[in-house]
């Protein structure tokens, strides 16, 4: 995904081809090795740990929410199946699905309570659950469960030949890898990658982060439960709380995921192929004299991977096979003749020809007296500090409304309240006549309120086109259509030269253009633009003004916060002046900037007097 140049986005059948090949070849290898238990055991361990790590990768790699208590789901799956088999003689083939259901319910309980925590807090909170389950099971006398041997063979998942278990495990691995591969190139996967990198921006781009995280969590948990079943029937025979709920499960899964490569399809498999045999070999050789040798390998692998190879083995391999997204292209292009022309052309293109579709086509004559956005009596406090007080604003349709005011006067807070990042204490907001006061940002975005941020919030490890796609997904569920739309917008905004570069290497101007593109890709009817000219030179600021005018021409209403009053006056049709969370002036731009309140707010009382006398 980190490449330059156009890439394949949508999935074709051949995207899954390598997965089939690996699983079939693996099964064949297992078949031809023969029934030697020791070798088959290692093979089975490799496949099972890969499956578990890949499942873990969905929530912790792709979605970036490290679940330290992942063994909870492996254990739940194992215990459910074994208990059903032991006491109700329900076949594990059925029991494993019961295990999945129980694990998903468990995940729902855990997820609902912990997914709103962040980073390390989330990790710690999740680890509490297996630690709660552990003593409860022990207390109930379920510390050790031996799987009864019934002799029914296939129907009770009991085979003398280990190769059958390897076969089952490979089937499981195929399912897991196909799921992961599908997620990787789906709208869901994009949403996960986006929220991992920048939750605020993802919310602003119409992604329901909580819901997406929860779905990833449930999916992870279900697949982990399947692994738990096969693990207990194929390897353990006697299931103990320590063996399936123990911290060492977490350590293996984490090591394999991180050493292999976080958020990759093939990383866990490669890492498992290396770590599992080494661990088993050490255990066989020195296990009796040095019982902890195997765990030490995993510990060292974890430390070494984090310190020296955070992108993992697969990340390394991928990087060395694909050209680096070189950051030096910018400066080189400026020197080179041909390219620089393209760049200049990109910058100074005639923006008048741009068209952006708002979600509902607004006919130009429609905006008579009906304001698109009504803010009625909004109060917002931070602790005791009053950020917005009794605010009433009506935003005229199809025009540029400028908001000015000194730092800390509540301008950005107003934007945060409008698109739902902050709930107001009092008052209501009507958008197109609909009350949107308590709606979440992603809902606001879907309704047609776009937003750019004061400090650009791009998804830095995604390419420019992928960034825009996140916005485009709001209107096009289909990945190919979103991709095509994103490419089109990138070209319109003069980003075509950088479309396949990572957003992290962009210049200030390009980053701003990316924010605009992404917001426009959501096809807003109302666009909130927060300090678009900050950090730009006067010429670039002028160009921003032109772009805003074009946006207006396309029927999108714009609210702009800006400090550069002179630039704002040129583009705004209507202006609102803020001071200390209150609206102090409103009207046509020239009137507002001449308003004594505004002069005082910006420059102090002395200047107001001087202005009055002159």
């Amino acid at each position, binding site marked *: 995904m980190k490449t330059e140049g156009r890439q394949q986005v949508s999935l074709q059948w051949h995207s899954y081809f390598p997965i089939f090949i690996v699983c079939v070849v693996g099964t064949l290898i297992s078949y031809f090795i023969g029934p030697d238990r020791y070798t088959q055991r290692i093979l089975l361990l490799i496949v099972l740990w890969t499956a578990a790590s890949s499942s873990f990768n969905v929530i912790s790699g792709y979605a970036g929410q490290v679940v330290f208590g992942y063994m909870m789901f492996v254990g739940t799956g194992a215990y459910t199946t074994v208990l059903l088999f032991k006491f109700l003689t329900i076949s594990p083939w059925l029991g494993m699905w019961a295990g999945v259901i129980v694990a998903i319910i468990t995940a729902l309980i855990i997820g609902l309570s912990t997914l709103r925590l962040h980073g*390390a*807090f989330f990790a*710690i*909170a999740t680890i509490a659950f297996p630690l709660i389950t552990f003593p*409860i099971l022990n207390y109930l006398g379920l510390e050790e469960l031996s799987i009864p041997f019934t002799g029914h063979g296939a129907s009770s998942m009991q085979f003398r030949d280990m190769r059958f278990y390897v076969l089952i495990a490979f089937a499981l691995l195929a399912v897991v890898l196909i799921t992961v591969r599908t997620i990787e190139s789906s709208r869901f996967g994009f949403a996960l990658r986006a929220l991992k990198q920048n939750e*605020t921006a993802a919310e602003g781009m119409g992604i329901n982060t909580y819901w997406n995280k929860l779905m990833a969590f449930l999916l992870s948990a279900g697949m982990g439960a399947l692994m738990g079943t096969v693990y207990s029937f194929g390897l353990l025979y006697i299931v103990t709380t320590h063996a399936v709920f123990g911290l060492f499960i977490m*350590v293996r899964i984490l090591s394999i995921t991180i050493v292999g490569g976080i958020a990759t399809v093939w990383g866990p498999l490669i890492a498992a192929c290396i770590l599992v045999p080494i661990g088993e070999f050490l255990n066989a050789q020195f296990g009796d004299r040095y019982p*902890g040798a195997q765990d030490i390998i995993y510990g060292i692998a*974890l430390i070494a991977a984090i310190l020296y190879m*955070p992108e993992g083995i697969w990340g390394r391999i991928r990087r060395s096979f694909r050209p680096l997204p070189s950051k030096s292209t910018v400066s080189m292009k400026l020197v080179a003749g041909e390219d620089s022309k393209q760049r200049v052309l990109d910058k100074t293109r005639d923006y008048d020809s741009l068209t952006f579709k708002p979600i509902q086509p607004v006919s130009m004559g429609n905006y008579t007296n009906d304001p698109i956005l009504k803010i009625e009596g909004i109060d917002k406090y931070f602790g005791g500090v009053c950020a917005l007080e009794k605010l009433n604003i009506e935003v005229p349709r199809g025009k540029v409304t400028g908001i000015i005011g000194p730092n800390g006067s509540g301008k950005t807070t107003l934007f945060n309240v409008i698109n739902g990042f902050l709930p107001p204490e009092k008052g209501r907001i009507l958008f197109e006549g609909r009350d949107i006061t308590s709606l979440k940002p992603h809902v606001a975005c879907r309704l047609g309120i776009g937003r750019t941020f004061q400090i650009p919030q791009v998804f830095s490890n995604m390419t420019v086109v992928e960034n825009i796609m996140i916005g485009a997904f709001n209107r096009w569920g289909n990945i190919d259509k979103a991709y095509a739309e994103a490419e089109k917008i990138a070209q319109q905004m003069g980003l075509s030269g950088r479309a396949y570069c990572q957003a992290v290497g962009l210049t200030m101007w390009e980053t701003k253009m990316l924010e605009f593109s992404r917001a426009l890709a959501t096809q807003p009817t109302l666009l909130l633009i927060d300090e678009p000219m900050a950090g730009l030179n006067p010429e670039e600021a002028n160009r921003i003004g032109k772009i805003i005018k074009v946006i207006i021409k396309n029927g999108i209403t714009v609210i702009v916060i800006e400090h550069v009053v002179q630039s704002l006056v040129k583009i705004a049709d209507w202006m609102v002046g803020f001071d200390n969370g209150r609206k102090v002036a409103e009207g046509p731009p020239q009137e507002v900037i001449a308003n004594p309140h505004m002069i005082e707010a910006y420059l102090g009382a002395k200047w107001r007097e001087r202005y009055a006398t002159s």
Partner: protein
Amino acid sequence: MGIFIESIISGILIGVSYAVLAAGLALIFGVMKIINFAHAEFAVLAMYFPTYWFLNWWGIDPFVSAFIALPMFFVLGYITHRLLIEKIIGTPEAETSTLIITLGFSLLISNLILIGWSGAPRIINQPYTMATWSIGNVLINRAQTYSLFISLGLISGLFLLLNKTLIGKAIKAAADDPEGCAYMGINLHFVYALAFALGIAVTAAGGCLMATYRPFHPFFGETIIIILFASVILGGMTSITGALLGGLIIGLVQQLSFFVIPIALQNVAVFTILVLFLYVRPQGILGKKGRAV
């Protein structure tokens, strides 16, 4: 009634022993905003070396060992920070990266202890280990009582160090605003390393004290680390005072819970409180609610 008072007293005694360990964890989190998963393993290491082995080799009393452990583990903590933590601090994923790397390190420590000194549970055998004072029909363990006073001394020492010395002020400043500190000529890496070393040293001393009355084994850390997290989270993560309070509450909950639930489930009560707290009041008892966005 006697048993109730006894539970409260032993709850306080155990609570303070957690509080010392948790204070180090809170110090490290408060300054660097990282969670040290290997924290309890340092305490376990201190239980073996110096406490247990110094007693066996040279007959050095565990309470003396606690003060030997302070400089020893200060150096060890400093080295650990320089080798493992320093590189990751400041990267975008520092929070989870350090959690994972310290998890790896905890595995390393506990398994090395297992290989070196076997997995057999150990116990310190000193006259005061089992001895008790009796007040009426309430029995109080002597080792725990001595530990309590030394623990309080350690904590006061930590407070004095943080509040009265220049280096303590630098640590507090770094916790508040790292960037500002860097501009004021404070070497951040050095201050971080000091804070980490200090946290580890206090914890190790706490471990030595705990060893005087509790049997321990190489994987003892796994059982107490979550209790420490619970204490720190209850106390609002960054505050040492909060961690003390949290440790006390956890100790009391553990000891009093057996009136309601079976003793085998006492940790269930603790972890349930941890989860509830994370859910309802993630900023802890003393913490203030942060500003959104």
